[in-house]
């Protein structure tokens, strides 16, 4: 399967969706990211791996400017999306986040019904004009997140009443309902059991057809299973960034080798 994906990837001409150049992030005086250069390809799953505290989540949150909401966080360098600087003054982070969706580590459904959870994004962005369209968007998103069958009879029940795995799929449905171009996932399976994890991985693979997905994960197997590109973060720097099969079979950096073989990290 990986070989097939490699071939597929090589055959397709791919543009850079996001280009990060010399990105530094400071929390107060503490430098969390020390000059990262990464290109995120369109319609590709990119995995960020690395030991805890290495800055992969922080870097992920730079891509949709979620770090703006944290006091004392400062970012330098350049992040281009489709060639435009997302930190330019003319860019409204609110509009950026509508294009760059995010799924969090812990499922965080809103205290609303399942329907309203999914309809939240389309409603605030005015993506639909009438109830019928909204119904359709909700159904489509829930279907794509592979939770429609479980949720269709209880759309008016609170999203918080679902199980952990269902909640996370609901959060993915919520994120894709806004029709983003990039989907950021911050350890989306860390709170889930293997069955729910498998469902979500399948889903990520499916989502690749529509947008680029960036996933932070602690599970090496997961990175190998779902991603085409992998970046290994260590102490705020990217040690190695390459095609996933290469990272996992023939890494160039000895630190990457140590980390993926479990000798270190």
């Amino acid at each position, binding site marked *: 399967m990986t070989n097939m994906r490699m071939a597929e990837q090589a055959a397709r001409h791919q543009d850079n969706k996001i280009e990060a150049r010399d990105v530094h992030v400071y929390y107060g005086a503490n430098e969390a990211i020390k000059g990262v250069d990464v290109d995120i390809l369109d319609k590709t799953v990119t995995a960020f791996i690395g030991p805890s505290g290495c800055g992969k989540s922080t870097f992920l949150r730079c891509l949709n400017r979620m770090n703006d909401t944290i006091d004392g966080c400062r970012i330098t360098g350049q992040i281009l999306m489709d060639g435009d600087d997302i930190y330019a003054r003319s860019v409204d982070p609110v509009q950026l986040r509508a294009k760059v969706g995010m799924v*969090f580590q812990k499922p965080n459904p809103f*205290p609303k019904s399942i329907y309203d959870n999914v309809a939240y994004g389309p409603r605030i962005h005015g993506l639909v004009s009438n109830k019928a369209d909204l119904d359709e968007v909700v159904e489509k998103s829930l279907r794509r997140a592979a939770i429609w069958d479980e949720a269709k009879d209880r759309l008016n029940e609170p999203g918080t009443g679902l199980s952990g795995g269902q909640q996370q799929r609901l959060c993915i449905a919520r994120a894709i309902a806004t029709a983003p171009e990039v989907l950021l996932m911050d350890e989306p399976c860390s709170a889930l059991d293997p069955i729910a994890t498998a469902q979500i991985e399948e889903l990520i693979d499916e989502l690749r057809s529509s947008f680029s997905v960036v996933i932070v994960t602690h599970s090496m197997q997961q990175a190998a299973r779902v991603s085409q590109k992998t970046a290994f973060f260590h102490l705020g720097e990217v040690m190695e960034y390459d095609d996933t099969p290469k990272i996992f079979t023939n890494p160039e950096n000895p630190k990457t080798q140590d980390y993926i073989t479990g000798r270190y990290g």
Partner: protein
Amino acid sequence: MIGTAFLIVIGLAFMFMALARRQAFGVADGNLAQLHSRPGYHGLYAFLIAALAGSATLMVVTIGGNIAINAALMSQIADALPDALRIERQLVLSDAIALAEGRLSSQDDALRQAVAVRFTQLEGMRVWGALGLGLIVASLTGGQALRSVSLGFRARNRSEQILRGILAACAVIAVLTTIGIVLSLIFETLSFFDKIGWRVDKYLFGTRWSPLSGVSAGQMDPDRVGAVPLFAGTFLITIIAMLVAVPIGLFAAIYLSDFASKRVRAIAKPMLEILAGVPTVVYGFFAAITVAPFIRRTGESIGLDVASESALAAGVVMGIMIIPFISSLSDDVINAVPQSLRDGSYGLGATKAETIRQVVLPAALPGIVSAVLLGISRAVGETMIVVMAAGQGANLTLNPLEAVTTVTVQIVMLITGDTEASTAAGPAFTLGFTLFCITLALNIYALRTVRKYREMYD
């Protein structure tokens, strides 16, 4: 005297505690792990049973002695004054006790002197008897505890059982007090209804409140006890107060929790809480002396006729008083909404306003509702501000510029007025009971609302 005796018994119990603890150390002989209970528990057990048994004996002897002394002295007085009324004999007795304690009495005759001497003797016997018996019982039980100190003795389980009993007794006292208050309210209310010939409808729906002007031969005029103006006044002032307090308090809470920088919050939140610490009597004269004349002048300058005591002045100041309750409680619940929900909303491209309105506030709603209902309870029960600023005349109006009166104001007027307490108490208790029912209903409603939303949101 009894207080000192009680302290002595407790002191003895402390001694047994130290002894039992030492004995436990001795029994363990250096290897404390052999003991079922740690030495401290042996001490605690000895202390608890000695103190409880000793002070219980003390109390029984004291109360029983008091009854016995009264009976003995009354029979002495009855022998001396066979024709006197019971109330005259009681006067003699209280005079004699006053004499014995060196206070002033109404008369000072031979009988009173003799009774006083007898009282001094008996009283001495009572105090010493109580102390002696208390000490004996405490020593017996404490000694029993000392003898039972052994490796296998379950002192921890026993003392925990006793402590649990003490905790339960405290809970029972709290519950019984509540029941007692409610029962006394109910009985006074029933006797008031009896005085108005069971015309409860006149009380609930009548519009004329002047209860003390219609008293004759122990009966009241049902046409003058209509409570509607009072409840209308309370209602009006509460609405004005909540119109001031809910928006300001809630918006302040939202600002403090989601917009203010840490420094602003560190200064502003304690300031708001100081507002809660201002005594209501200060708010009262602030309302009466500053706000009411201001409203009157402003009203006159735009051609409105404003009474010098107005529902508006009292309501606005009461609202200011309630702001910190609502803002502080709402701020807490808004802060308790997990950051992950906010992140989730921001991550979908929602603005701060959208996030607060559609995610944070719904999640915090149960807490906000209970904060508002707590505020309403405060407003309904608030007294000082309305006494000073709202007026006393029972005036049925919904015009906030006129003087109105509230339930609490009328209770104050009835109880502090110069009418005989037994007459004034009836309507006062009835108003109090009605107020109690209203706040109770409000609280139950609040709890239910909160529970309903909690099921939905947790």
